[in-house]
């Protein structure tokens, strides 16, 4: 990492949150993979939230247009009811991203709170939280989700987000906790204690700024996991989500046997590629964030 990047990152706490984000994006754009990831995520966000305004959804079944090959009129072809695939793709990202963001938000919040408390308080609280986290981490997530899905009707985006977050927090919590433990031991925190700078100063000026990058990475990883799980659930038909989303597209294509229609290749590949590209963008973003923030985290050890 260059000295310039270094000083940019180190300038973060002195600036407002917006400047900090701007600086981080600047650093991201300077790495090829970071730039790709950032642009990819931006593209999908724009498509999911601005795109529907320009591409009205095509919901009318047209029996004469079933499984059409891609053409100028239907760039990605049509589905088993003759509807435009491209418009479904444009509209199908929104719910997925909302659930992923909700999950990541709750996950990060719970993980940071519990991780920080466990790290700071230690003792029994730490042991119990860590024990629960370890147990949840050991239980295979997908089967547990299946079992839970059979008891709770997951027809609500927020509820789905909460459920996914309930399984997603432990990994993050452990990471945050070990960060807090190591930061708490830092000599500069002790120096702040010795100077009686107050708990607020220690938490908000000395410890949290060093963790902001880590939280950003965790947030991205939380989204990745949430997308994986929710699409999987929808695909198995266990989440009776209505409306358009890539998961439902996949499920319908699968159930209707679209894979066996050679003309339907674009129809079935479109959601596959959309999901994969979104995941790839998020992973590139997370990895670049890690590269930007981690050398400094490691340096302090």
């Amino acid at each position, binding site marked *: 990492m260059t000295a310039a990047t270094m000083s940019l990152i180190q300038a973060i706490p002195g600036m407002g949150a917006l400047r900090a984000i701007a600086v981080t994006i600047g650093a991201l754009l300077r790495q090829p993979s970071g730039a790709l990831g950032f642009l990819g995520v931006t593209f999908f966000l724009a498509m999911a939230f601005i795109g529907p305004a320009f591409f009205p959804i095509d919901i009318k079944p047209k029996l004469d247009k079933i499984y059409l090959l891609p053409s100028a009129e239907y760039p990605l072809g049509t589905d088993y009811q003759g509807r435009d695939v491209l418009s479904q793709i444009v509209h199908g990202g929104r719910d997925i991203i909302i659930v992923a963001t909700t999950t990541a938000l709750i996950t990060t919040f719970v993980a940071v709170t519990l991780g920080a408390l466990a790290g700071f308080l230690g003792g029994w609280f730490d042991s119990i939280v860590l024990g629960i986290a*370890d147990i949840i981490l*050991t239980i295979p997530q*997908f089967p*547990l989700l*299946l079992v839970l899905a059979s008891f709770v009707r997951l027809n609500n985006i927020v509820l789905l987000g909460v459920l996914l977050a309930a399984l997603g927090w432990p990994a993050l919590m452990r990471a945050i906790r070990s960060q807090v433990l190591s930061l708490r031991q830092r000599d500069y925190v002790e120096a702040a204690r010795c100077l009686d700078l107050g708990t607020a100063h220690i938490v908000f000026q000395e410890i949290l700024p060093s963790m902001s990058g880590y939280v950003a990475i965790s947030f991205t990883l939380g989204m990745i996991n949430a997308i994986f799980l929710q699409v*999987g659930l929808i695909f198995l038909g266990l989440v009776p989500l209505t409306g358009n989303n890539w998961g439902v597209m996949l499920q319908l294509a699968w159930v209707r046997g679209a894979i066996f229609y050679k003309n339907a290749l674009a129809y079935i590949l479109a959601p596959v590629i959309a999901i994969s590209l979104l*995941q*790839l963008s998020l992973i*590139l973003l997370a990895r670049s964030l890690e590269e930007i923030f981690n050398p400094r985290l490691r340096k302090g050890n």
Partner: protein
Amino acid sequence: MVAVSPPAPPSDTLAASVALAWYAVRSNYVLQRVVKAIVTVFAVATLTFFLVRLMPGNPIEQYIGQLIAQYGLPYSEARDQAASLFVIDLDQPMYLQYLGYIGKLAQGDLGTSIKSQGVKVTTIIVAFLPWTLFCVGISLIVSFVLGIVLGAVMAYWRGSVVDYGLTMIGSLLHSIPNYLIAMILIIFLGVRWELLPVVKMRGSMSPGIQPGFTLTFVLDVLFHATLPIITYVVTTVGTWMLTMKASTTATLEEDYVSFARAKGLSDGRIRTAYVGRNAILPLFTQFTLSIGFVFGGSVLIESIFVYRGIGQILVSAVSGRDYPVMQGCFLITTVSVVFANLLADLLYGYIDPRVRVGQ
């Protein structure tokens, strides 16, 4: 470390012996892992009990209602029938029900299927679990070994075209969900290019084949397991490659590696005993997490390939609301993962002498 107050006078209180036991567990690596495994299994068993028993509109009441509506059974009879299916004595207070359930579990009694009346859940599990264990086990090992070799190659040749290419492939594979890879395999290998007879490959073995240690049988099993194994390996190998590369790169910087060079050791010896062995160590903790992930993923993969393993049974039990089967499958999946984790942990303790603290 915890600062303690001046040593308390020795006492034979319960608290003291609990504290002593706690320290004994904490200081012994093997004991620590075994206790963790037991607690996890216990927690999962408890969770399933309370899900079944306490959730609003819980399956037992639903089932009783169903029996009354369908067969016109009197309430008490319906109730008895439901209780026998779920291994729960509904007349007892809740805590006794719970204890009874745990006791039956300990004896290996998981209840009886609702859908296939009279079939013991254990029978179902014994029939389907081995297939999943076989597939997942082979995949984990193949993927781990392959990832380690490729990752080490990337680290040694870092900055080269090989490293660049493998990193790209690794990142790509890492980012695509496993069920999408499975679909892509079917679409291209099976339907578009017709390279594999995907329909014939369904199931865990062809009908009419006699199980036994015959070549035909082994080949047939492998034939049916090919696609699931490829999917598991392809979707996990990327992670191993990238992690191993990072770990090896870090290990190459270690003093003991330069020192091994200074000692004039052969490159082969340095690569295996000095770099390789130390670089693999941090991957082991991840390996344990991956066991659960791959095992859990079997639910989706087995459904897509119609592979007759425990994952597919779980899915059909969930969609068919066959609660005892679902409960049993989920329990056994978790126990398998916990057991595999325990094995990996113990193996890790064997490989890394530094974790054997309290020996």
